[in-house]
């Protein structure tokens, strides 16, 4: 089950569009690399959300017009960006003081694996891939709320929401909510609670591609987007 009618790009867009509903006016938010970066495109113009970039900026703006790029102005994904009115720049120490000090309302990250306890893994596959944790471990350790935004299954169709992560962890018991193209899942003391299901997806569909046991929320409803 992976909504075969959706291209990978549309899947990613759908996830990003859904994540925006977790934001509120006045939030300070850190967006990780990958799908989380797409979230910025879906923030409604009347919602003031300040985006932090862990390399030392609050108030990141959109990509520049061609020719307006500035090598001294990049985001944590090393992409050229712009400043907006109210932006500020600061050092790496200050940036992570801000993150670790619990000042971010929301941290949105991608993941290779998430598990029933809210642990996630996204920085290495032993013997195969070493990406480094970058700022991810700090972001999940201290944000007021941590959302994982990721495709529900791997490219080969294997589940990414597991009973227990098998890869080296980025954070232990830190995730609050998981948003995929198939649904929205909250990590609770009782386990993983399915709160929303994408249009056309049944509980059995999503459980079928999820290794961890899902509990249907009494208020289970259709996924916002």
């Amino acid at each position, binding site marked *: 089950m992976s909504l075969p009618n959706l291209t990978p790009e549309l899947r990613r867009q759908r996830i990003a569009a859904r994540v925006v509903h977790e934001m509120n006016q006045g939030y300070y938010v850190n967006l990780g690399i990958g799908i989380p970066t797409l979230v910025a495109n879906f923030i409604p113009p009347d919602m003031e959300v300040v985006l932090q*970039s*862990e*390399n*030392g*900026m609050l108030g990141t703006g*959109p*990509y*520049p*017009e*061609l020719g*307006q*790029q*500035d*090598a*001294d*102005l*990049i*985001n944590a*994904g*090393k*992409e*050229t*960006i712009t*400043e907006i009115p109210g932006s500020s*720049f*600061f*050092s*790496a*120490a200050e*940036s*992570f*003081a801000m*993150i*670790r000090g619990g000042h971010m309302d929301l941290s949105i990250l991608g993941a290779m694996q998430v598990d029933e306890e809210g*642990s996630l893994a996204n920085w290495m596959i032993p*013997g*195969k*891939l*070493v*990406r*480094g*944790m*970058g*700022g*991810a*471990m*700090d972001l999940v*350790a*201290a944000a007021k709320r941590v959302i994982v935004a990721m495709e529900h299954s791997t490219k080969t169709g294997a589940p990414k929401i597991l009973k227990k992560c098998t890869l*080296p*962890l*980025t*954070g*232990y*018991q830190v995730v609050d909510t998981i948003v995929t193209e198939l649904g929205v899942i909250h990590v609770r003391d009782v386990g993983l609670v399915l709160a929303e299901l994408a249009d056309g997806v049944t509980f059995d569909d999503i459980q079928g591609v999820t290794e961890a046991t899902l509990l249907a929320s009494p208020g289970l409803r259709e996924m916002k987007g």
Partner: protein
Amino acid sequence: MNKEIATAEEAIADIRDGASIMIGGFGLCGIPENLIAALVASGPRKLHTISNNMGVEGFGIGLILEAGMIAEHTGSYVGENKIMERMILAGELKVNLVPQGTLAEQIRAGGAGIPAFYTPTGVGTMVQEGKEVREFDGKKYLMERALKADFALIKAWRGDRAGNLVYRKTAQSFNPVMAPAGQITIAEVDELVEIGEINPDQVMTPGIYVDRIFESPFSERRIERLMVRGGEK
């Protein structure tokens, strides 16, 4: 107080085999390009480098790695450097991977006379291995030690001959953090100005932290990912 030194070559001439070296910047942004080039030309070996990233293949701090000069590296991200990833997987490079916030705080602590501190980052992960875990107010934290280095190589936008520095936009990153943590701190600046030309309220790194300073003859300022409205170029 004149800390000006003529060239990058002269500035790094006393970096010898086995030295520990912090290098500022984030990715290819805010890196001391001329100091890196001079260091590669000078060729000391068995270095312990400390930097957030390792640049990319063929540019930035990656050049030092490719020249076979690094014995040990401490950093938070490998991502864009495939050569480094290959060396790590093959066991050819001793690498200490550290969460970015912990790295920044360790370096800040090194310059600030704090030998160790506690952080919530990395609790319950591989980062915890071998470290003291301690509870404060019911929450677990790891004890992390400070980091210092024999040399800190940094890049600023403007600087004066007393070593006062000003950074520009996200080219700030690790540069002001590392300046106080180097036994000898060397700054390359786009523009070297007279003492008094920088507004004292706008100094970001006070001169006390800088030992040598010179104006960069050239910076390529390569962009790693040129994103513009409408997509990547």
